[in-house]
């Protein structure tokens, strides 16, 4: 993902796909998606706290990238993909907000944070010691909890910069804001997280 660092100004030009070029694009897209899909899933899962929903969001983002932006230069794919994914996550939160309001109106119980069982969502361990898995899992759980206390834009900036390795320009493209805003959001996010987790992490 770090290889994606560079200039992310989205170009207006579209390369015309013809014959072998289309096949080459298909191969490039497959490779790109294979590289990014796992991280994107975790990215979405942290944002929506539901793996099934996260899988749907990632698949939608993949399909939209393939349909609309595959003619863009490959170095623009990463920020574009994360922008699509971010938009999907925001739409999901809006839908959840409406749904929860409706549920409250009708006296139902809205699914809140308590419904999310991190242990139940834990993936199968793959050749690691249980102690290490547990330690890592607990630490990640703490980080996720702290991230959820951040304003959404700060969380996005932190995740894109830290987890996905996008540089400031790429993060700005993915978030649809200025580079200055990215720097501000990231700065505030990391200091807020350090304050929250300082005791455990220092």
């Amino acid at each position, binding site marked *: 993902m770090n290889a994606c660092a560079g200039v992310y100004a989205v170009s207006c030009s579209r390369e015309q796909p013809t014959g072998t070029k289309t096949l080459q694009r298909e191969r490039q*897209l497959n490779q790109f998606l294979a590289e990014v*899909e796992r991280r994107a899933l975790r990215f979405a899962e942290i944002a929506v706290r539901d793996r099934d929903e996260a899988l749907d969001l990632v698949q939608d983002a993949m399909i939209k990238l*393939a349909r609309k932006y595959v003619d863009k230069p490959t170095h623009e794919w990463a920020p574009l993909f994360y922008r699509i994914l971010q938009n999907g996550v925001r739409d999901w939160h809006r839908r959840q907000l409406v749904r929860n309001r409706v549920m409250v109106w009708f006296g139902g119980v809205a699914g809140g944070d308590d419904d999310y069982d991190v242990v139940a969502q834990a*993936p199968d361990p793959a050749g690691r010691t249980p102690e290490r898995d547990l330690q890592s899992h607990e630490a*990640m759980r703490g*980080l996720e909890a702290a991230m959820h206390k951040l304003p959404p834009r700060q969380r996005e900036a932190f995740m894109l910069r830290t987890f996905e390795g996008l540089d400031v320009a790429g993060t700005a493209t993915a978030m649809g804001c200025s580079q200055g805003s990215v720097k501000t959001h990231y700065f505030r996010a*990391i200091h807020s997280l350090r304050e929250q987790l300082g005791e455990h*992490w*220092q």
Partner: protein
Amino acid sequence: MKEPRKYTHDQDETGLTKPEFDKTELNEPELDERFAGQAKELFDDSVERLDAATLSRLNKGRHQALVELQKTGLAGQWALWMPATGIAAAALVAVVILQGPGIEGPSLPAESVTDFEILLGEDSLEMLEELEFYSWIDPQDFETDNNVG
């Protein structure tokens, strides 16, 4: 030139490698960097621990995206040829209209022009009255001409 950070790596009882920093030597940006590094390590670790069923679903999603790309590619190629096809079709229609024999209705022999001149002449009304006669005499002339030739 930036001086390299002073820290050592150590393994705890669980085997997890932890960087050991001397915090007093780190300034704020370095502390931020260190924190980000630890967060990324945890995130990467959680990515590595994704289970097989989830990976399978991701794989299916990726293939679905590639199928969409193929559809878009075919549509794109067709769209690419559309203007050229349209221009060619328009040119063909133009040629047919300008030069084609069947567009202007039934073809008339050259003599018909003369016939029209006669019909549109002063005697036309009289001729129309005797149209039956002329229609009888015309084949007769044709046969006579052939016999002469």
